[in-house]
């Protein structure tokens, strides 16, 4: 199993991470180690096995659609790096 520098950079781009050139090799090597270990899964026959995404059986969790007390706007914005007029502020989206 080999992961190229380009693959690391591609996945980093998808995940909105910038990886320093100096660290790319290290990530490529450790990811390859882990994925190589995961190759063992391909030996298991799972043709008729359903996937599990949730370990305990529960059905849909419904609730009444009623107004309840939630965070005040001021509290919801309290940790925002930047806010204005009751809203989150982000850098310019369209250049």
């Amino acid at each position: 199993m080999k992961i190229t520098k380009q693959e690391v950079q591609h996945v980093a781009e998808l995940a909105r991470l910038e990886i320093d050139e100096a660290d790319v090799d290290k990530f490529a090597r450790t990811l390859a180690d882990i994925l190589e270990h995961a190759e063992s899964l391909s030996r298991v026959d799972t043709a008729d096995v359903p996937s599990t995404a949730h370990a305990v059986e529960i059905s849909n969790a419904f609730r009444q659609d009623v107004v309840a007390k939630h965070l005040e706007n001021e509290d919801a914005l309290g940790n925002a790096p930047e806010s204005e007029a009751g809203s989150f502020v982000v850098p310019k989206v369209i250049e």
Partner: protein
Amino acid sequence: MKPAELCGLTMHEACDLLEKREISATELTDAVLERIQAIEPRIDAYITVTGREARRQARAADNAIRAGNAGPLAGIPVAVKDLICTKEIATTCASKMLEAFVPPYNASVMEKLNNSGAVMVGKLNMDEFAMGSSTENSGFKITRNPWDLSRIPGGSSGGSAAAVAADMCLGALGSDTGGSIRQPASHCGVVGLKPTYGRVSRYGLVAFASSLDQIGPITKDVTDAAILLSAIAGRDPRDSTSVDRPVPDYRAALSTDISNLTFGIPAEYRDAEGMDPQVSSAVEAAVRTLTDAGAKCVDISLPHTEHAVAAYYLIAPAEASSNLARYDGVKYGYRNPEAGGLKQMYNRTRSEGFGAEVKRRILLGTYALSAGYYDAYYKKASQIRTLIQRDFAAAFTRCDIILAPTAPTPAFQIGEKVDDPLQMYLSDIFTLSANLAGIPGLSVPCGFARGDLPVGLQMMGNHFAEADLLKAAYAFEQAAGINGKKPEIAEVPA
């Protein structure tokens, strides 16, 4: 009582003394805060100590005890892992990303602790976003194992386990996604319980892998684990995955009569790779102790054990890569202040805010979910997860409780595995499966390796069988008689 004796109490001993008014919550809390001040420079278990608020809660507990309307944990000093949201108290996840995050609300478990009268003395160190097995991935500090300061306390709830072992709180909450309660409990010689998925509300628990995460107690003995679990368990409408089942009085279920329980010993765990022979002998001795105490033991098989690490380290990072997308510098947390446009702001914020292991798991998870790899990795791992669940379902037709080591080795040296993530991941071999299957698991001290390094015995039960697990662990604890040995905390090595 002397301050050192006060700090050395278990929660249930302290409850009895408080109720009889032989001690006060204020003197108990003061003793614990002084102990933290004295020992913290050697252990580094805490990210935040909330002394003033703790003293206020202690005074309120004393008043409630005098008035006769105290909650079940009134005046008991506890601490929580720093990924459980605490209103108006910083909750950092040991990450630079959340260094300045102060939640505007309490997690459900914090509301429950507050309502029970507990005194919160602080927030505990951990691997960043709970990703790690040694607490070395904390963005702030490295916690030391109280039994040997050159060794790791385990992780990711390493601060919780170390603080309980060093009497820097009477009990603690951790969280367990792949062993993060049980493995540090094992390494620090304390009791740790990961409940059934859905037993405890995750509302206000900062998410790592949502289908695997559970909050649970880390305590000095099994009785305390039962008390603390009763305090935090139950359905919560704010966590739709919490399950609506009555919460038994777990303490009332404790008994030394285990003649009605059958214990299963999985063949696959015996010859697992990397097993330390002294851990094997401690676990074998524990099995003999249980047999002598009247337990029936049978051999069982969990045939897909060898695939658990691979399946887990695809599923958990995949969920993490999605959960951690929320750290984008907009709603809370760190933001790079200089970035020009939105995308640059995202990239720089996330690259500067996350540590190396968190980035590795995001990359791994993104890879496993990305076009062309989804079927081979994420989907395959989810199918293996089904097979692992079926292994347990079959095993529980033959036994009530599965016995295993908690970790293959005692605590390793600080720095020993930091450059080899795969080796670090493989040390979770015995604990990951319980999270994949959603079943409860408990680690109880069962002996020592190489002199003074604690070894934990793991017990796993069927979904919602916590009462049986606690009973079995209690019976073992009483029969083994090793409880109560405390670490001698050395001076910090130069």
